[in-house]
């Protein structure tokens, strides 16, 4: 497997295995992300992309192997400690709290490091959220809920953002808007690990792509080589 990564990766995953109860989902995942990079995990449904994010975050039943963030081993530590190292997670189901209003949802994750975005900056990025800040979180549209789910992890100072299918089920114009926001976040220096089904969307934002099959990373393609690997990618993704 070709590896064109930095000498000092922000996140390095090796031989990661994970289980939900009796089912063995990840069979030795390995990849790494350099500082400021935007990397995607691609693959068909059920290959373990979401489980990989959840394992990095420490919220699967059982895991083994190694996940080092800024050189520190995180396997075996509880998720609240992992979050405090500077990893933030935006789940596929968005996880907006219905008993909290928009602003309370936005303010919920505690700051873990200095240098997070201010609430005003986040409202500038997502003006809809400011308008509806007194609404119940789950009363927002799907696109607004997605923006809230992304917005609330920008405040905390976390430098690695893990976004799980942020475009799922959204209208094309909203997908485009989320693409712009993700590019802006990269420009601001955030390191981003993106899980996507929508390859066309992923191709417009990412530096590199890791391809997963059956609970393993099986290939890595840098953005510049995507054109000549279209056939191979289509075979991987089954499109």
């Amino acid at each position, binding site marked *: 497997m070709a590896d064109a990564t930095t000498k000092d990766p922000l996140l390095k995953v090796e031989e990661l295995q994970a289980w939900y109860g009796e089912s063995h989902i990840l069979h030795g995942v390995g990849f790494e992300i350099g500082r400021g990079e935007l990397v995607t995990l691609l693959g068909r449904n059920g290959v373990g992309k979401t489980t990989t994010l959840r394992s990095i*975050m*420490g*919220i699967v039943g059982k895991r083994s192997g190694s996940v080092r963030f800024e050189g520190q081993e995180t396997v075996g530590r*509880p*998720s*609240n400690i*992992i*979050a*405090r190292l500077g990893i*933030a*997670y935006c*789940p596929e189901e968005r*996880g907006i*709290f*219905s*008993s*909290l209003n928009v602003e*309370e949802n936005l*303010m*919920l*994750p*505690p700051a*873990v490091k200095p240098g997070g975005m201010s609430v005003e900056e986040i409202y500038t990025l997502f003006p809809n959220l400011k308008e509806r800040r007194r609404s119940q979180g789950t009363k927002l549209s799907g696109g607004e809920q997605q923006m809230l789910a992304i917005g609330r*992890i920008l405040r*905390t100072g976390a430098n690695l953002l893990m976004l799980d299918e942020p475009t799922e089920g959204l209208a094309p114009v909203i997908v485009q808007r989320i693409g712009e926001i993700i590019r802006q976040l990269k420009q601001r220096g955030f390191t981003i690990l993106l899980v996507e089904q929508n390859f066309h969307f992923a191709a417009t934002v990412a530096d590199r792509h890791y391809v997963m099959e059956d609970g393993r990373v099986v290939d890595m393609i840098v953005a510049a080589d995507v054109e000549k690997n279209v056939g191979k990618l289509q075979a991987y993704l089954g499109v």
Partner: protein
Amino acid sequence: MLDIFSIPLPALFGQLLLGLINGAFYAMLSLGLAVIFGMLNVINFTHGAQYMLGAFAAWLLLTNLSIPFWASLVLAPLIVGLFGVLIERLLLKRIYHLDHLYGFLLTFGLSLVIEGLFQWKWGSSGAPYPSPIAGGYNLGFMFLPAYRGFVVLAALVVCLATWYGIERTRLGAYLRAATENPTLVQAFGINVPRLITLTYGLGVGLAALAGVLAAPIQQVSALMGTNLVLVVFAVVVIGGMGSIMGSIVTGFGLGLIEGFTKVVYPPASNTVIFVVMAIVLLVKPAGLFGQTK
């Protein structure tokens, strides 16, 4: 005109006021139960015993160390709350992943053990606790002891402060969010197990505070919580499991209904709350303020 439907007004107002005082205790106790159930998903059957422990703590502090009521009002809930923290850390946290039934068995068993120990040591006849506020007011239709008036006000303040803390503060937002999705809240960097422990301590502390307030009104005895807590469970069911405002409103409301029944048809006064519970469960199974999950 001094009577409506041949009920003398002084008797009516008198009973309503007594109902309000009972309601104050129902509200405080069901509030603690609701907070605990919301966060831990455990129905805390030890609540009555913890209420009794609050009263006993105040009585023991007074008789052994001459610590007055007003200091006990703070000290007793702290002591009993810490005891609650220990119970959560040592016992409850081991059963969260199991069926509700285990939480019931554990907390019910605990209350039997605690009440049994206190009955063995101090008997069941009860000890008096002197009222910290003497005197009272003649309201025309009845004489209101000043202390009972204070109890109603104190209960209102405690209930509203708890509601404010949960619905309007940052810590309360953590609590509400962790009730919905503890995994995600923990993945944001919040120590959810500690939050759960604190919540249980807070709920138990509220029960103990109600116990301290009850000490000058009732006899301080090992079984003072058992009968009360039965009514309080009915209140929680009527209000809706886990609803904060629901517990407060239903607590005071049912106290009043009970008082009213005592005037209209006294024999039903002990059962009226359970009749209301049956009706509410038929019409709105999730309770008046509850949401179906």
